[in-house]
């Protein structure tokens, strides 16, 4: 009886030309942005290698800077100076940073931990030049002169928040059951934290430390008025000290071609040293030398 109801047909309208074109255009734009971003990356690396390789020689790696106009000379003192400053920074920053990381993961699952977490994230965003001012006030003003120590303090301040946060994350990845197993056989809490939790996460923690190290290794701004730079050899930590990044800056803004050449060489050496340091520690971790005895 009654009128036959028609079964509704699911009909999909064809996608209009406009929508198809938009889709293709946006995909094209997206690919284009990737290419545009990759161009400077490759340009920087290619230039660095091309300009740097030609200027690196034995003299560059073994001599101190020559006065303007005299050819030759090198950045040996700056390479060593950078290592001294970074050594001081690591000595101060790594234990404190790991300690803060342990606090965050093992003792800081509460409001106090949240405060420390937020503060370390904020510290991470403080411009490095401002950290330089602080280190100037803390160390240089007291000592009355620029020093490797002041530079180390500045870089340590920059390392601590990064190390704290990555250490925290790595420790949190360690399963709770491992800690409980240790407690269960009567191991005290501090011993569990150090010998079980921290040791289990060693490779991750060390990777985090190296990340922080690599980040500050090329820093220039906080060293400008802390380490200051030096044209000669200096082995005292309370005297102005040369650093590779400072030397690159000075040479780059100078009007001399010879110095420009050396700036490129310095930049290449700097990046190679950073990569080498990170790789060396990673390999050491993999082969168990640093994985705890």
């Amino acid at each position, binding site marked *: 009886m009654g009128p036959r109801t028609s079964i509704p047909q699911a009909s999909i309208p064809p996608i209009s030309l406009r929508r198809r074109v938009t889709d293709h255009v946006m995909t094209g734009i997206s690919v284009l942005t990737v290419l545009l971003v990759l161009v400077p990356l490759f340009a920087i690396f290619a230039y660095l290698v091309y300009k740097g390789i030609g200027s690196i020689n034995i003299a560059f790696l073994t001599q101190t800077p020559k006065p303007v106009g005299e050819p030759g000379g090198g950045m040996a003192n700056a390479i060593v100076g950078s290592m001294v400053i970074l050594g001081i920074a690591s000595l101060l920053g790594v234990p404190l940073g790991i300690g803060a990381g342990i606090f965050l993961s093992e003792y800081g699952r509460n409001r106090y931990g949240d405060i420390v977490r937020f503060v370390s994230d904020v510290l991470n965003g403080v411009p490095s030049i401002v950290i330089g001012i602080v280190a100037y006030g803390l160390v240089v003003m007291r000592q009355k002169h620029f020093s490797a120590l002041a530079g180390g303090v500045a870089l340590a301040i920059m390392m601590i928040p990064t190390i704290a946060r990555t250490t925290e994350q790595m420790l949190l990845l360690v399963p709770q059951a491992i800690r409980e197993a240790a407690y269960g056989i009567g191991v005290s809490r501090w011993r569990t934290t150090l010998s079980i939790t921290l040791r289990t996460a060693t490779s991750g923690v060390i990777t985090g430390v190296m990340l922080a190290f690599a980040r500050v290794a090329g820093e220039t701004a906080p060293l400008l008025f802390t380490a200051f730079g030096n044209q000669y050899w200096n082995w005292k930590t309370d005297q102005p000290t040369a650093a590779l990044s400072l030397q690159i800056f000075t040479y*780059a803004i100078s009007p001399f071609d010879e110095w420009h050449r050396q700036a490129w060489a310095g930049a290449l050496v700097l990046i190679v040293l950073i990569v080498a340091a990170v790789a060396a520690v990673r390999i050491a971790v993999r082969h168990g030398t640093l994985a705890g005895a």
Partner: protein
Amino acid sequence: MSNQALPRPRFNAPEPEREQKAALKVEASTKPLLQGKVSEIPDAVFGWAMRLCGLAVVALLGLIVYQLVVGSQLSWHAFGWKFFWQSDWNPVSDQYGALPFIYGTIVSSLLALIIAVPLSLGVAVFITEMCPTGLRGILSFTTELLAAIPSVVYGLWAIFVLVPILRQYVQPFLAKTLGWTGLFSGPPYGIGMLAAGVILAIMIIPIISSITREVLTVVPQHQREAALALGATRWEMIRMGVLRNARAGIVGAIILGLGRALGETMAVTMVIGNRPEIAKSLFAPGYTMASVLANEFTEATGDLYLSALIEIGLALFFVTIVVNALARLMVWSVTRGQPSRSIA
């Protein structure tokens, strides 16, 4: 800096030695394993030592604020708020106004954002939504490699490669086509505000794109499927299903990039021209808050001069802290509740 590169650590918890195992078994059968009370003192000492380390991080921030505030007292008393809107910077007559530096910082950072935001969004969208899986890892790695190059090396490259290109090709072109706006007029030196903006953009692209990528990955998959099921094209799916949901996080990523641009020192100092003037044209040299610190701090002879510089540092510090805190809250609002992946 994103910590994505961190590998999951290997769980190599120490195995008890074989003899110890054997010893444990024997002892367990004869007498209770634990005897006497475990001393609680070492535990307490260790716990407090770690808390002290945590406290040190907070103290560090306090120390920074204290140093900056004390150091800038002299200048604050001499100029008050006037310091921030006076444009006279003259060490000889001991007159200090920070306006040219504030202007330079804002303009160069905004310029960087204008260039970097579309590019980083394009890269992030490509990597998360369009890219073949094989290419994804390589692309994320290469863009993050950009973040690992020291700022001074960017500056070096900018002086010898970017600036000549700007001077010879880009600036004449801009002057010819857009010169009437007044933004692109004057002699094309190469060095100036435009160069600073471009190099800053190159430096903040990895930050914005890697955080945007993280934000886009946490957009639930069913949002994409729903959009596609409604007959959306891929771009419509990205626009309506993905980008709209990730809006707050993307804005957060952009602000985080802004925070980095505001405080960036070396590369900018090397190409901006370092002249405390406020010019309409982007070809003209400028000066930023960070660069004036880099250039003049060691040469500041008078107490007031030094104090004025420290006050600029204080202002820079506060601005970046506010910007960063804001950005973090916005990124958290999107990624919260997701498996913890750090956004640093």
